[in-house]
């Protein structure tokens, strides 16, 4: 049974878009646009769903949670080549300086990028009157990710395009009593 939610679909999409715009333009000198919005709901996605990206592309996912009036978790799934490009831009490095085994460097950069994105999202929530605290970022690597609906939370997937490369924001959120 899903809860009624205090934030509208339009507001949530605007929150996601603003947090991406702010971080990408400030830190990466790049822009990204929303290509697809998916509502992950119990009645329509009982079996779960594939992440809307090429299942064979290696991905890196940054995760940061937030706790407060609204509690939730946000995942940023990024194609690995885009993650490496973002790392290079953040750290002023060339792609050849980052070896395939240099997971720590890319993980940390994407963790920080996720932290900034979720921080911006959280700050916008705070401006709407929902105070919350953030958790420390964590990182997942893999491919062929699937997403399942959450029983008591709202889950929305936003697929973005950044210069021909895809990344996905997965927002999972519920209101605390």
């Amino acid at each position, binding site marked *: 049974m899903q809860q009624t939610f205090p934030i509208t679909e339009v507001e949530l999409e605007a929150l996601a878009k603003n947090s991406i715009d*702010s*971080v990408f333009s*400030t*830190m990466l000198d790049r822009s990204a646009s929303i290509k697809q919005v998916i509502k992950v709901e119990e009645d329509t996605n009982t079996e779960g769903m594939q992440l809307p990206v090429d299942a064979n592309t290696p991905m890196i996912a940054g995760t940061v949670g937030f706790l407060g009036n609204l509690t939730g978790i946000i995942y940023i799934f990024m194609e690995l080549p885009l993650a490496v490009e973002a*790392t290079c831009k*953040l*750290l*002023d490095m060339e792609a050849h300086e980052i070896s395939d085994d240099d997971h*720590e*460097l890319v993980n*940390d*950069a994407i*963790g*920080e*990028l996720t*932290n*900034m994105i*979720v*921080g*911006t999202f*959280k*700050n916008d929530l*705070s*401006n709407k009157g929902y*105070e919350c*605290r*953030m*958790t*420390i970022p964590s990182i997942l690597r893999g491919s062929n990710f699937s997403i399942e609906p959450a029983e008591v939370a709202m889950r929305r997937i936003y697929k973005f395009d950044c210069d021909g490369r895809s990344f996905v924001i997965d927002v999972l959120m519920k209101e605390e009593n």
Partner: protein
Amino acid sequence: MRLKILTVDDSKTVRIIVKKSFKGFDCEIHEAQNGVEGLAMAAKVNPDIILLDITMPVMDGVEMLTKLKSDPQLKGIPVIMLTAEAGRENVMKIAKIGVRDYIVKPFKEDVLVDKVSRVVDLRPAGEAEPVQKKIDDPIDILVVDDKPAIIQQIKDGFGHTPWNVHGVASTGEAIDFCQKKLPDCIIISLSLSEDAAITLFRIIRSNAKTKYVPLFGLSVKTAVEEQARAQQAGFSTIIHKPIDFEDLETKIGKAVNLDASGKYFDMGEGFMTVKLPKSCNAAVVNEVSTYLKSKTSEAVNAGISKIIFDAQGVASLNMDLIKLLLHSMKTCRDLSLKYALTGNDVVIEESKKFEESKDWKFCDSLETAKASI
């Protein structure tokens, strides 16, 4: 002494970005991954400023800040919070503990540099121990004036010097110029439209790289209103048109801290010659006095024991110059140095009018003076 910046952040990425941001400045960056390491590092290196994240494992930024402010040795260190968490609650909480400022991630590197430079004296790299330029070294002077004739006049006025005068017509071009090349001195026309001179002054003063560049306002003497506005904004020196280039050269020399001793002192063949210029006004006499002691020591250390005060080029003798010569001659006597004076007809005639100088003996050439001692 190099500035010490401590960055406390669990993200290596942020610590690298901080390092990158301050690459062009004379500072050393120390790093810590959490509050515990941050406190230990602060006690060890005694940084000039701390950039502190909030959300960190082991000990977060708020706890570290609280402990820092309760430590008598560390509580004076200014702290700027660098955090992804803004929000009223957070800002209020950290403000109560005592931070100088906070920066919300994401942030532009120049915002970080700007905020830090408002708290500590951040200087571009290589400026910490500057090699003093000499008066005959090339320096770069940027002239911002929409009248090409004035720019040309200044170029011509400094034609006899090795100084490079660069002219631009607008504030935008001036900012672009400063980004590419840091001028030694900037002269801004106060008559630029829409108070552009004041706007440019503020931009230059608020930028960490250009904030120490001497800024001169250029104005017609009668335009008192624009001069008053410029002085109110903080212009320390206003140059009047028509420009007195001798005066401007002296002012630039002082503002840029050029070693002007070469203009007045010459050593060779066992003599030190003090060349007194045509106009020996109070500013010039003061400048010569500034160098006199060190140059006399330099001469003595080089084995020189004879000094000639060459007033052949002086247009008119005045009390400031007489006092300078009296003082110099006394120094020579105290140090057992031999000395002689040269002068032209005007100087010799005027010297007889003053009680202090009426008995001075002048030679009519350097050769005669050298032969006399």
